[in-house]
């Protein structure tokens, strides 16, 4: 098979076109040109900064429970006090700003805990399968059977003194089953991929395969799901606090402010209005941010 060789003779392939696509393949629009990502990202960033450094927004003035004058109680908004005065006679704008910390902290920490548990447990269930998967899945089913808010109420009842960490604990306790199922199904798909088999052929152990190949490739959808969940956790904290089972004074949170405003809804509607607006914008911001992230990571969406 010399000169009359078939198409696969040596040299024949030399002229073949085997060119890589340009590294910058695909029309990636600039992120600031995508309004949903830009707006929701700005809201999320703003709220996180507000939670971390409320002083930035109150002009480094008095804290939420300082400089209060009980004589001014429930005063409507004015030029001096943009959001008016609360029941205790304190500036309501300062209070609402400082209220961000509890809400944001609960939302992000609970979601982060749920993310970590789901990533690990879901990866183990999906990767090993068999009885490991059966046990984990049945536990998830049981946890799913409990109504989330009701379960959190029962747990919070057990604590006499409730602070932000007890609320986080109660919410985190029941927030992971959805994520575990989600992660498990992504891992089920990925564990049969050829690059996983290639790693096994090279002699990689289970721990290495899970840490280096399975989790990095399966975790993105879970990350999006848990970002969407931040808003839900913020609402849950506010809801629990509103019905008197979450945070208790002297903590400052939007839920507590809404609960206090309940009794003065006729005399001082501004007490209800401002924390409600902040709560709504924050929850909406996180939900939109999660959806924008999902589209961002979805190659078909481009």
């Amino acid at each position: 098979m010399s000169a009359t060789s078939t198409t696969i003779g040596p040299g024949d392939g030399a002229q073949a076109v085997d060119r890589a696509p340009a590294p910058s393949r695909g029309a990636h629009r600039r992120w600031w040109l995508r309004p949903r990502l830009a707006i929701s990202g700005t809201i999320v960033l703003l709220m996180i900064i507000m939670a971390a450094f409320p002083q930035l927004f109150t002009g480094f003035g008095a804290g939420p429970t300082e400089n209060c004058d009980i004589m001014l109680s429930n005063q409507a908004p004015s030029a001096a006090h943009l959001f008016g005065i609360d029941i205790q006679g304190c500036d309501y704008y300062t209070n609402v700003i400082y209220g961000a910390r509890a809400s944001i902290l609960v939302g992000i920490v609970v979601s982060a805990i749920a993310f970590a548990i789901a990533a690990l447990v879901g990866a183990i269930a999906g990767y090993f399968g068999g009885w490991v998967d059966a046990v984990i899945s049945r536990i998830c089913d049981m946890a799913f059977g409990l109504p989330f808010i009701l379960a959190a109420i029962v747990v919070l009842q057990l604590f006499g003194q409730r602070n932000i960490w007890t609320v986080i604990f109660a919410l985190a306790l029941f927030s992971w089953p959805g994520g575990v199922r989600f992660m498990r199904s992504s891992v089920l798909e990925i564990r049969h991929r050829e690059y996983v088999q290639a790693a096994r052929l090279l002699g990689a152990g289970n721990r290495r395969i899970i840490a280096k190949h399975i989790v990095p490739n399966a975790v993105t959808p879970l990350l999006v799901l848990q970002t969407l969940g931040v808003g839900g956790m913020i609402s849950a904290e506010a809801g629990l606090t509103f019905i008197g089972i979450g945070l208790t004074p002297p903590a400052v949170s939007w839920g507590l402010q809404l609960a206090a405003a309940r009794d003065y809804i006729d005399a001082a509607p501004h007490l209800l209005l401002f924390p409600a607006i902040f709560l709504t914008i924050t929850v909406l911001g996180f939900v939109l941010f999660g959806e924008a992230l999902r589209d961002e990571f979805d190659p078909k969406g481009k």
Partner: protein
Amino acid sequence: MPHTATEPRTGKTASGPIMELRDIRMHYPVARPLPFGAKKVLKALDGVDLQVPAGQTLGIIGESGCGKSTLARILSGLEKPSEGQVLFDGVDINELQRAERALMRRNIQLIFQDPYASLDPRMTIEQILLEPFEIHPDLVPRARRRAKIAELMELVGLNPDHLSRYPHNFSGGQQQRIGIARGIALNPRVLICDEAVSALDVSVRAQVVNLLQDLQQELGLTFVFIAHDLQIVRHISDSVATMYLGKVVESGSYDRVYEHSAHPYTQALLSAAPELRQGSSTPRELILLQGDPPSPIDPPTGCRFHTRCPIAQPSCAASEPRLDPLQGDHAARCFFPGPLNLGSG
């Protein structure tokens, strides 16, 4: 091409088999439609005996669903057979202890069909090629590893400057070269190519096949080359095995199987491939097989090929032929081996 059947074409010295399959069976349970129905098994491989000669290339041909890929997975150790032994240097690889198995891993590597799917999309080429050495840290000292993967890149014809890129930045042919670089990183002795070039453009296919041949000479590799593209198999193989419905129906050196095929199925396969070589003795008569291959869940009795065989006799359905030697290492699983005479010419 005046050389005898027993002498390997490429002048590579023949020695004993480096790998051997003994009566390999791979049965997968099939979900029953009704809970009380009979238990069924899919017999992907049903009694495969095969020898892989050291330093040579064994081509495995057969149509889709005949068990080629299952064979690749069992040879590479990705799956354990339901029954039978997979011997490497005379040792059953599925009987090894943990530490010995890790060493064995270095000796047998597999090149996958889909080059992109076989590379982790979230790893750079550098991370992908470093992984073998992280798993086997004693092979190359840490300080030497970067130089080693640069060497590997050059060996497979890629630019070492592109190590920081991701798999999707490369073309299919380049991705397969990366897969090959990873496959040879641990200095394996056997490289199994499961349709390794089927997903590539015809032109790029030639480059990759040539690369594989160069590597074989340079590194003394043994190849098991699984493909449905007969031209590639003929180009690269020293010996060939034909598979049909989970069994080897004909095996032998390249010349015997191609020029003197004894099994009607091999003859049908070869006659269906376009003949490009000029001066070939006589043009093959086209043998068209009727129908689809039978289901491996419910294979035919007797000779598995009798339902589609142009020369089948009633006795073929009654008992199963063995893989009987014809001449040298040439063997066929047929009661009536030899050139087909259909009476038309």
